[in-house]
Structures are given as C-alpha cells and as structure tokens.
C-alpha cells in the first residue's frame, strides 16, 4: 500500500511500476500541471483531479463526483497502465490527492500504492527529476465495474443516521463550522466525528506507523464496528486519506460518502450541525 522513495527508485529501475503525479492546488487548478512540467519523478504521468479523477459537476453533485468507469479506463490506458505493474501515486506533501486515486483504483477493483512522504521526500532524497511533458503511452484499457459496496449516498446517510459512524476528514475548523473557505454553508453532518487527515501523518509527511494509527483509530471508534464507518470530507478527496490510513492500520475496507459536504449542503432540507 505504501512504498518508500528507495523502493520506488528500484521499481522505476526495473520498470515494474506505473507512476502517477497527482499534485493539485484547489485554488489554482492549472498550477500543479505547470509544476509537473517544471519537474516530476521520472516516468510519472500527470493526473488532474478535476479532469481525470472526477466527473463533471452537476447542480446536485458535490465538487468532485466520481469518474465514470469508461472515462477512468481510458485514462488508465492513456497513462500506460498495465495490470501486471504496480500503480504508485504521489502528490505534494500529504498524499491527499494520490489517496483519491488509490481509492478510485480500489473502487474499480484494482490495486495501487502511495509514495510515502510524496514529492518532498523524493526531492529531499536527491533522486533524479525529469522536466517537460511525458511521452504518449498506450496501456491496457480494462473493463471496469464500480464496487458500490464501497460507497454510501446522502439518502442512505439520512435513512441510517445513528446507525453509521461518519468520520469527517476536514480540518477541525471547517468541521466545527468556525470557518468555511470553500462551501456556502459551514458545519458538519450531524453526529459525525472529526479526524483531520493531517493526523495520519508525521511532521515529515510520512504515514504514522501501523501501530500508532491503530491506537488512534481505536480511541476514536471506541467499540464501534468498522462496517459502520463512513468517511467524508469536503468533496470526497481527503475522505480517501482516512480510508487509506484505516486500511494501513489493519482495519480492512471502510466506506466513503463521495459527495461529501459540498453535495450534502446542496439540498437545504438535509440537517447540519455546528459546534465550537
């Protein structure tokens, strides 16, 4: 699930991975593509959150609806994905966007890994970089089927409220409703607990140890069954980070609500909660 820079370096040498650069900046959606052109890990293909890891926004949807199986399969083929190669994703710093790709792969029945420490770790290790656009590649275009058992929608949340444990991956400031930099309403889904994604990482931006993550999630979940856990966030991106961390901690698969807060508030009849 997690590869170190040393391991990735080996995988690149023997040509047994497909590498994806998921860096993204929500406030400047073109910036990271330029950053990619300025320098990336050799062989990496750029994945754009809005274009490749999401489908188009609708009046009912959140900010990053899940991509359709067909378009995601085409994207995999265009970046040279092959089923016998390990897909390794990275982004800048906290792996929030690469975790979305990891989760999408999982959703479509495929495997992926994250680069621990991301782009910063690679650069700090002094390993080679490459500039410019990537060569065109052709890979396998798999028949993808979405696994809807991994997702929960707003109607299910409403009907099963009290029977699900919602974990909100946004910052405690957005969760509490004290500030809201992106959405028109502030707060969280009633009953949700807060687990800001930054808690999954150490100061170097690497994932905490399996044991430490396990202890933290055990404390948060108390005796609640993991099958009741549903992750959400602003738009179904950082929710994947908590899902990844829980899986790393040995919990197996937990579900996400892909629409998340930005979809939830589209319907004013859905309840919201604030706290200070």
């Amino acid at each position, binding site marked *: 699930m997690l590869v170190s820079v040393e391991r990735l370096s080996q995988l690149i040498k023997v040509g047994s991975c497909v590498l994806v650069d998921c860096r993204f900046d929500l406030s400047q959606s073109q910036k990271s593509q330029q950053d990619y052109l300025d320098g990336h890990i050799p062989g990496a293909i750029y994945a754009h959150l809005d274009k490749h890891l999401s489908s188009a926004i609708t009046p009912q949807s959140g900010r990053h609806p899940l991509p359709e199986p067909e378009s995601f399969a085409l994207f995999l083929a265009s970046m040279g994905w092959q089923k016998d190669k390990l897909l390794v994703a990275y982004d800048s710093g906290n792996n*929030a966007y690469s975790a979305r790709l990891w989760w999408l792969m999982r959703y479509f029945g495929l495997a992926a890994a994250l680069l621990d420490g991301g782009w910063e770790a690679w650069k700090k290790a002094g390993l080679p970089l490459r500039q410019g656009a990537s060569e065109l590649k052709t890979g396998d275009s798999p028949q993808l089927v979405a696994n809807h058992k991994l997702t929960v929608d707003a109607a299910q949340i409403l009907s099963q409220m009290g029977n699900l444990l919602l974990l909100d991956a946004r910052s405690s400031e957005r969760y509490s409703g*004290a500030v809201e930099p*992106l959405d028109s309403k502030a707060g969280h889904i009633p009953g949700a607990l807060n687990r800001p994604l930054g808690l999954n990482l150490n100061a170097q931006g690497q994932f905490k140890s399996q044991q430490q993550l396990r202890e933290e999630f055990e404390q948060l979940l108390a005796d609640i069954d993991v099958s009741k856990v549903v992750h959400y966030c602003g738009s179904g991106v950082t929710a994947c980070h908590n899902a990844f961390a829980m899986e790393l901690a040995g919990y197996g698969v937990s579900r996400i609500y892909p629409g998340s807060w930005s979809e939830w508030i589209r319907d004013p009849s859905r309840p919201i909660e604030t706290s200070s």
Partner: protein
Amino acid sequence: MIMAATAPESDWLRRLQAAVSPLNSGVSKLEIRGYKPPGDSSYRPRKTAAVLVPLLNLERPEIVLTRRADHLPQHAGQVSFPGGAAEPQDQNAVQTALREAHEEIGLPAHHATPLGFLDRLDTISDYRVLPVVALVQAPIAWQLDQREVAEVFTVPFEHVINLEHYENRPIERAGISYSIWYLQYKHHNIWGVTAAMLLNLAIRYRDAGND
C-alpha cells in the same frame, strides 16, 4: 464565521483562516509539540509565553521575524517571533503577544488583526509557548527595542509554506539527542522553536487547502 477586517478577501487569506485554530475555540484543543524530556510523560513547563506570528497583508504576504540582540543571556542572535512571558496584567495570550510585539518592534496593536492559534510548543527552557497568528496592515515603521532586538526582517509566506524548505537534524545536548527543525532563507538561519512553529503553520496551511 471569522472574517478578517480586509477586503477583498484573497485565496491565501481564506485558506489561512481555515488553517489556524479559531481564537474563540480556546487553547485546550491545541496539540502540544516540542520538547519532551525522555521518560517523563507528565512533563509540563512551569512558565507560559505567547508569540505573535505577524503576516503582512500584501498581495504576496510576508512573515515578520526578528533577530534577537547578540548580548542577551538566552537565545542571543537567534531568529524568533516577537513575544515573551505572560504578565499579570495580560488578560489572555493574544494580549501577551500583541503587547510584546509592541514593546519589541513597535507594532501598533490596531494594525494587527489576530486570526487564530497554532499548536502549542514546549521549550527546553521551561516555557509552554502559544503562537498567535495575526494579519498586519503594512507598511509599519518598525521601532526596535535594541536591548532585545537586533533586526526585524520578513520572509515571503510562499517560502514558509513550501515544505521542501524544512530540514530536520538531530543535535546532542548532555548526551541526549534532540530533533531540531531548520528553515533557511537567504542568510537567515531559522531553527528550533521558531522553525517548528513555521512548519506547523505550513502543514496546517497545506491541509487546509485540501477538500
């Protein structure tokens, strides 16, 4: 919702507001980082201090730092934020930070809009330090208290939030190894508690930009 007293509100400011902990949420929820004596889990520094993390409200914002006077008994010549120990007349940490910034670099309190807190940091010198992030209206005619401050300078916010710029190195003191953060900007060598606070700001800012 907290809105800063500036218009129009820029992207970086909205994101910064989501990155810091709101003033009204109190300090008890803030994590405690920094120095921990080996084997002593109940450690709690005896003294309380606050520092101001001043951010000049420019199109490309800058962080204000000071270099401490060379003749001081503690932390001589080191880069730090304006700040100091809480005094009896201070009603809260925000007041401590603003008072110290006024005393040390002549920052008028009405030029500063406090935005929120960063995580608390324990120092080896027996302080628990609370950083208060404040938006400052530039320009300011700095007036240095030369007994304490040798120089005031700014570092671009862009430089501070780039996590590639931080380095972690161990140092040894009395046979015990401590992990120290470093941030270099031009000839300024920012390290220790100040670098750790800036790193905390950078990490919070990074995570606040996610969705």
